[in-house]
């Protein structure tokens, strides 16, 4: 590979100040905006999580139940739509053009729109909290992030705010998905055939296809919900002959693929990190690409495993149980490839590698407990219990969030040109691992013992485990401030200068350009051999 060196100073000129960020069409600027936005929203979602765990610290009521419901709902929506999705989209914007040797994304102006739709969406989600403080309305959406009818049909204006937030976020995601697909299909450097594309690029291609397939039906669903609420239609309203279960189908037709939309980009970045720090090439490139395809395809046909208790014929229960279990096969192939990649490598344990290994462990627990839940019979007991809460946090924090943190540390020196503080990074990792497991292991036991989710208070026999879980949450929450510290330090220019390759074992086009990369990379396309 030979990277493009043709950069005269002239090309690095760009508007300064606020208008640089408002009107930017540069993929690296937009990528950084996404990542910055995501960090802020992780903190917002995190503060809400701390409020939840504080309420559950002891078996008493501190927060009024109806406010508690709003807090868990907004926590879920913010984490999924405003924290994790923007983070992976930011990585896509920053990395995909560099990884395939393109000068920018294919549709730069749409890209700018894609980002700037997000802050208003986030505002719509949290604004009803503040309106309530001024006596307007009865607060944010309180239905749970799944927005099940009839609650969502009857709920207050917070539901309308959430519906409009979903419109904006859907528009944003669809714009970036289209952009990713066009960029990948049309802008690869000479010699960069599809089967030479980095694994991360592949993972995002599948993610973008999934988004295009499942976000529009959700938009259709919330449109019907809005019509039920305000125009007297009866899609989900049983009173008019509608069916609340129809909403569940529409929601989960989106909702299950959504978890793979969150997961896949980080499953794509993981092999890069593992390979760098074990100084071995990625094992099983083809197997991983085919697994992504298999996961993507299966993810749209298993949705009703979330509805085993909603009433379904036995045949349907069996179908959704076995098809769900089948997904564990391509996922297990990914695990196998990850292990084989680090197997007998000369591993070193810098912060990104630690988080990547943590990902494998925690997401592994999430996957295995998911297999338990996919058993239609067992799920009758575990459904909507704290077992489920623990499971999906292992899957969503253990997978996507650990992956995002690993990727952030991995690319931070590339993006900013500065090495972060390794000691702080290592502390961040170990405190996260301790805090996370302390938070969520007790919740498995609480769930098995019968504690339901989405309640602000609980029976006395659950007190000890809840106390442990809350203490874990404080450890976990405060650990994330170490990442914020590292981010601020490198942005202030503190730290050793990073080389172009950054990490000794790093490969790929993005590590052939200087750190930080010039404003415009690859104006002359590199050639891949």
């Amino acid at each position, binding site marked *: 590979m030979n990277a493009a060196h043709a950069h005269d100073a002239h090309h690095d000129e760009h508007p300064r100040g606020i208008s640089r960020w408002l009107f930017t069409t540069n993929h690296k600027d937009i990528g950084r905006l996404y990542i910055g936005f995501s960090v802020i929203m992780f903190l917002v979602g995190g503060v809400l999580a701390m409020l939840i765990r504080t309420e559950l610290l002891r078996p008493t009521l501190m927060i009024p139940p109806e406010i508690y419901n709003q807090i868990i709902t907004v926590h879920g929506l913010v984490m999924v739509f405003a924290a994790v999705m923007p983070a992976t989209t930011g990585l896509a914007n920053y990395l995909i053009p560099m990884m*395939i040797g393109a000068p920018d994304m*294919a*549709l730069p102006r749409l890209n700018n729109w894609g980002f700037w739709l997000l802050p208003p969406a986030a505002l719509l989600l949290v604004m009803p909290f503040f309106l309530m403080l001024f006596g307007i309305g009865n607060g944010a959406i309180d239905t749970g992030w799944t927005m099940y009818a009839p609650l969502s049909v009857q709920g207050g204006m917070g539901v309308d705010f959430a519906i409009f937030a979903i419109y904006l976020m859907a528009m944003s995601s*669809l714009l970036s*998905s*289209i952009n990713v*697909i*066009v960029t990948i*299909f*049309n*802008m*690869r*450097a*000479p*010699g*960069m*055939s*599809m089967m*030479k594309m980095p694994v991360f690029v592949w993972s995002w291609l599948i993610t973008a296809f999934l988004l*295009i*397939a*499942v*976000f*529009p*039906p*959700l*938009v*259709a*669903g919330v449109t*019907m919900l809005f019509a039920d609420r*305000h*125009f*007297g239609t009866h*899609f989900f309203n*049983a*009173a*008019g*002959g509608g*069916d609340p*279960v*129809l909403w569940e*189908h*529409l929601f989960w*037709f989106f909702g299950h693929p959504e978890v793979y939309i969150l997961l896949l980009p980080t499953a794509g970045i993981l092999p890069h990190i593992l390979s760098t720090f074990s100084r071995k090439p990625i094992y099983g490139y083809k197997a991983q690409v085919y697994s992504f395809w298999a996961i993507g395809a299966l993810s749209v046909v298993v949705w009703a495993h979330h509805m085993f208790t909603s*009433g*379904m*014929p036995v045949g349907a229960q069996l179908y959704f149980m076995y098809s769900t279990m089948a997904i564990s096969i391509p996922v297990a192939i990914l695990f196998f490839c990850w292990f084989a990649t680090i197997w007998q490598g000369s591993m070193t344990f810098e912060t990104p590698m630690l988080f990547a290994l943590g990902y494998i462990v925690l997401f592994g627990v999430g996957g295995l407990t998911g297999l338990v839940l996919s058993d239609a019979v067992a799920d009758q007991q575990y459904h909507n219990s704290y077992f489920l809460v623990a499971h999906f946090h292992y899957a969503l924090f253990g997978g996507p969030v650990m992956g995002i943190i690993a990727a952030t540390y991995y690319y931070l020196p590339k993006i900013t040109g500065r090495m972060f503080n390794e000691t702080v990074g290592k502390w961040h990792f170990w405190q996260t691992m301790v805090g996370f497991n302390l938070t969520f292991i007790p919740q498995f036991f609480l769930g098995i013992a019968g504690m339901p989710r989405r309640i602000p208070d609980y029976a006395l026999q659950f007190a000890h485990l809840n106390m442990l879980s809350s203490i874990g949450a404080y450890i976990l929450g405060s650990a994330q401030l170490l990442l914020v510290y590292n981010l601020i330090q490198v942005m202030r220019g503190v730290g050793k200068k990073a080389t172009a390759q950054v990490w000794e074992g790093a490969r790929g086009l993005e590590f052939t350009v200087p750190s930080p990369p010039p404003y415009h990379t690859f104006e002359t*396309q590199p*050639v*891949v*051999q």
Partner: protein
Amino acid sequence: MAGRTVSGGDAPAPEATGGRHRRLTIILVLVVLGFFGFGFALVPLYNTFCKLTGLNGKTGGPVGASAVAALKPNDSRTVKVGFTSTVMPGLNWTFKPLHEHMMVHPGTVTSTSYLVSNPSDHPETGQAIMSVVPGRAARYFKKLQCFCFHQETLKAGQFRNMKLVYFISSGIPKDISSIIVSYAFFPVKKHT
């Protein structure tokens, strides 16, 4: 050395690139619109699916008199039909089945009724929704006359006897010996 492989191989002239981007973008936007439409199409699909399978106890609309003419009563079988009633919050009515159980032969037209009254001091409008358990039996429960799925208004203190005429078609699976027909009256809020 430019390895010429699949598309994206060589860097085309900028105008050409713009055209290729536009074409693919338009295709993708159409795909998005298609899936948006698919979301709406799921509603009739789901309803048809439920009627065919009886999922969620949906029975389908009333049947005509022609269906009665073709009936062949099967006196060798008896199915126990239970009736339940629910008044949803927001409606102040009392609502009871005249018969809690009936023993019927498949293929025989039977009638019963629900007793409804509005003891409150103002008129109220409600609409009854019905369903059948087990769901498998739903499509064998045929209504000739029913007060469900349309709005009924009761004046303050008014009483009404709401008639239900039905039969169970003889195709009902052998292992189903009893079914429950459930009616729920929902308040109707007038949307303006």
